[in-house]
């Protein structure tokens, strides 16, 4: 009994930390509608800055607390700077581009932190005056944890007062509901947004800084935290601060007790809860549906045009180049080309649901990874030939996609994206924790192709043949009646239903097809690398896919192809030439987003339009 009580208190302390980060994320999303991936980076920066300030300024008790406050404020200023310098320029771009930009910031911050603080874990000082422990039900409980337990509700009350008892809070709530009307009443939303970013980032920084006496500070804490914070925000309801506390409480307690009861599936448990909440209450526990929240990521004005003769020529030349590549390229270049060919299929499969389907997936790597694991397991456990593995991969992934589609039903927009994230995390957790089957972190090794496909050129042709056929089939589907139905459901779901299209069913089929294609890519990748690891279905790989699609342009069928080539090629080059490839990649992503808010292919199409003298699209 005593143990249960202490475990409950542990959960409460974690809930406070989680709440600080999640509330900031929620506030920023509520007002600006930006899903800020960099929020976890701010959390990490808060911890690092507090460490620097506390170890440099450790002059008495004020030193430690001054360091915590100073770090939170400094992170707030960084958040405001991010809003002013980058995000402000792309508020009118589709929301996914903002996400892309914030992801660029994640990469930049990660490498800058590495440059400044080094790769080693850092251990912070203890909090002066709170080093001891108190007796609770005969168990020792650290005083510092008690402080954390108090901070969560305290911040909740302060935020409530700020939002419900000040004019600024009223303006923020008004802008959250209807930005345009607030502007028409004289509210300067740019200043409001900057302030909101400051506030949200202060909360993230504070959350990070307060970890100083609790855990070691490292470069991975940001990403782990932002994913948990997403879960909290979505479970609590996007934009709802009390919801964030409630969800943080639930999830932290689930963690605290889950680890006792089901130590093997703690990771799955959290995402399972999120999936259940989203299916039962699609807007989260305390969330409300947003007015004017776009259900899809592409502007409805996006029309797919038939390929121009020039584009057909480019395609034909590209095809010849593909065939000739093994004769011109060395072995290393050929492996890169093989990898690109596989990732093109991965990107095209994601584009299939994002572009024509208008559904964002943060977890597309789940299907890629499932395909890879299916192929690897068939090959290593059943000793089946590669062809069987490549056949099983898309089938397993496609079935998983169909199952996911069946559950996610009518969700759309950010909520759907979050559910895909949850599903991918569940798959990742299974691969990571079910070591008996998957080898856990060690993965499955020795998944090599048979002798006929073993030479680099042979496997290259195999990958190109399968990938190209699948991509062409996806293209065909987009331009077939099925594609029309999918696009109609994206642009005007109600009208599409009114003319007899079963929008939900169309989306489910699209999901299954995309998942199957990603699975095929995963299977190819498994035999290409000769091994399979949990990272294949991790969030960073899903984000890779998103980046490829968004870089190429969501509104163009050739976008994912171009995006995959540019992204993989760029990454490959950067890794070769610099240790700080994340920094370079992050800067490149931010620059590309600022320069081409419609993606590379979209930009090319606009150029072509302009040359033809078509009227310029109005910059709405």
């Amino acid at each position: 009994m005593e143990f249960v009580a202490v475990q409950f208190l542990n959960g409460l302390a974690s809930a406070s930390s989680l709440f600080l980060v999640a509330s900031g994320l929620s506030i920023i999303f509520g007002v600006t509608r930006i899903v800020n991936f960099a929020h976890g980076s701010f959390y990490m920066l808060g911890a690092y800055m507090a460490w620097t300030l506390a170890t440099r300024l450790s002059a008495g008790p004020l030193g430690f607390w001054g360091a915590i406050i100073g770090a939170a404020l400094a992170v707030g200023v960084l958040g405001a700077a991010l809003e002013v310098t980058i995000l402000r320029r792309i508020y009118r771009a589709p929301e996914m581009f903002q996400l892309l930009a914030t992801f660029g910031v994640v990469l930049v911050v990660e490498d800058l932190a590495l440059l400044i603080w080094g790769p080693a874990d850092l251990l912070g000082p203890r909090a002066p005056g709170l080093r001891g422990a108190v007796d609770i039900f005969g168990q020792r409980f650290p005083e510092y944890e008690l402080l954390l337990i108090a901070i969560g509700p305290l911040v909740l009350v302060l935020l409530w007062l700020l939002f419900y008892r000040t004019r600024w809070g009223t303006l923020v709530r008004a802008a959250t509901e209807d930005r345009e009307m607030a502007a028409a009443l004289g509210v300067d939303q740019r200043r409001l947004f900057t302030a909101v970013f400051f506030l949200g980032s202060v909360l993230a920084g504070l959350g990070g800084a307060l970890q100083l006496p609790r855990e070691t500070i490292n470069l991975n804490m940001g990403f782990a935290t932002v994913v948990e914070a997403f879960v909290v925000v979505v479970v609590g309801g996007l934009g709802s601060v009390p919801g964030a506390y409630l969800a943080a409480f639930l999830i932290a307690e689930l963690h605290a007790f889950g680890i006792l009861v089901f130590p093997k599936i703690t990771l799955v448990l959290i995402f399972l809860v999120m999936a259940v909440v989203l299916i039962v209450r699609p807007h989260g526990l305390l969330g409300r549906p947003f007015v004017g929240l776009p259900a899809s990521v592409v502007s409805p004005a996006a029309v797919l045009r038939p390929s121009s003769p020039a584009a057909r020529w480019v395609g034909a030349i590209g095809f010849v180049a593909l065939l000739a590549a093994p004769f011109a390229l060395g072995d290393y270049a050929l492996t890169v080309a093989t990898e690109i060919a596989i990732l093109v299929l991965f990107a095209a499969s994601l584009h299939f649901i994002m572009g024509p389907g208008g559904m964002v997936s943060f977890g597309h790597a789940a299907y890629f990874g499932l395909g890879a694991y299916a192929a690897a397991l068939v090959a290593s456990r059943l000793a089946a030939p590669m062809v069987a593995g490549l056949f099983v991969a898309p089938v397993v992934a496609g079935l998983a996609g169909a199952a996911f589609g069946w559950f996610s039903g009518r969700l759309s927009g950010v909520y759907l994206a979050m559910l895909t994230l949850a599903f991918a995390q569940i798959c990742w957790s299974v691969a990571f924790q079910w070591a008996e089957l998957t080898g856990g972190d060690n993965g499955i090794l020795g998944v090599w192709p048979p002798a006929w496909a073993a030479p680099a050129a042979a496997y290259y042709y195999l990958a190109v043949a399968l990938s190209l056929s699948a991509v062409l089939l996806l293209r065909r589907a987009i331009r077939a009646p099925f594609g029309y139905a999918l696009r109609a459901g994206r642009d005007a779901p109600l009208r599409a239903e009114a003319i007899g299209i079963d929008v939900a069913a169309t989306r489910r089929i699209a999901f299954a097809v995309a998942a199957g294609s990603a699975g095929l890519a995963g299977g190819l990748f498994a035999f290409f690398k000769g091994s399979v690891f949990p990272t294949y279905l991790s969030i960073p790989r899903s984000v890779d896919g998103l980046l490829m699609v968004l870089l190429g342009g969501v509104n163009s069928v050739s976008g994912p192809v171009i995006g995959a080539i540019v992204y993989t090629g760029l990454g490959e080059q950067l890794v070769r030439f610099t240790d700080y490839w994340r920094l370079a990649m992050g800067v490149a992503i931010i620059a590309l987003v600022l320069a081409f808010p419609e993606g590379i292919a979209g930009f090319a199409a606009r150029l072509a339009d302009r040359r033809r003298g078509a009227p310029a699209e109005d910059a709405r």
Partner: protein
Amino acid sequence: MLRLEAVHAYYGRAHILAGIDLAVERGEAVVLLGRNGAGKTTTLKAAMGLVPVATGRVVFLGADIAGRAAHEIARIGIGYVPEDRRIFAGLTVMENLAVGRQPPRRDAPTWTVERLFGLFPNLAAMRDRPGGRMSGGEQQMLSIARTLMGNPRLVLLDEPVEGLAPAIVEEMARTVLALKREGLTVLLSEQNLAFARLVADRAYVIEKGQLRFSGTMAALMADAAARTRYLSI
């Protein structure tokens, strides 16, 4: 006070306003009449900076404000009451009013919450009610009161009586006349000729993004041909 000169505006590639010229003088109530889809709302939104002006000028108090952000336009004294009211549903009546608040201006009537409650007695009884739980007529009153909290020099009223019960239409007419007496300048869009007749001094008639008639309300009432051609259904 406000002058639109050859204003063109687009939604995507659709050409909505094809050269609008109109003027509103200080203290006037001017009505923009036209059928659904003629471009009334777009004209008001273009003046407010909510729809980009592709070419042409929007001159307010001598300065070209085309291309400025909506909040800047609101702060130099143009108030906007949208057609669909757009009350902040999660905010109370008092909070909705607080969002509209701006400092007083020397050359425009000054409004306080208490004065507005005098003008709209219904609202006084529901200070703490969330905007989402009010009737259409009450929301319309609140929308106007919220805009008046900014002490505007000119108010753009977009179809203020659309969808309201006849009794409330009369009340609205009295309200607009009261605002005029206070010295407020009003540009409203309307389909309801009967209502327009009660409140407006001058009228413009718009069709397919172009002005077809301009003159006093009396002249429009005398011109049966123009009324049939551009306004009757």
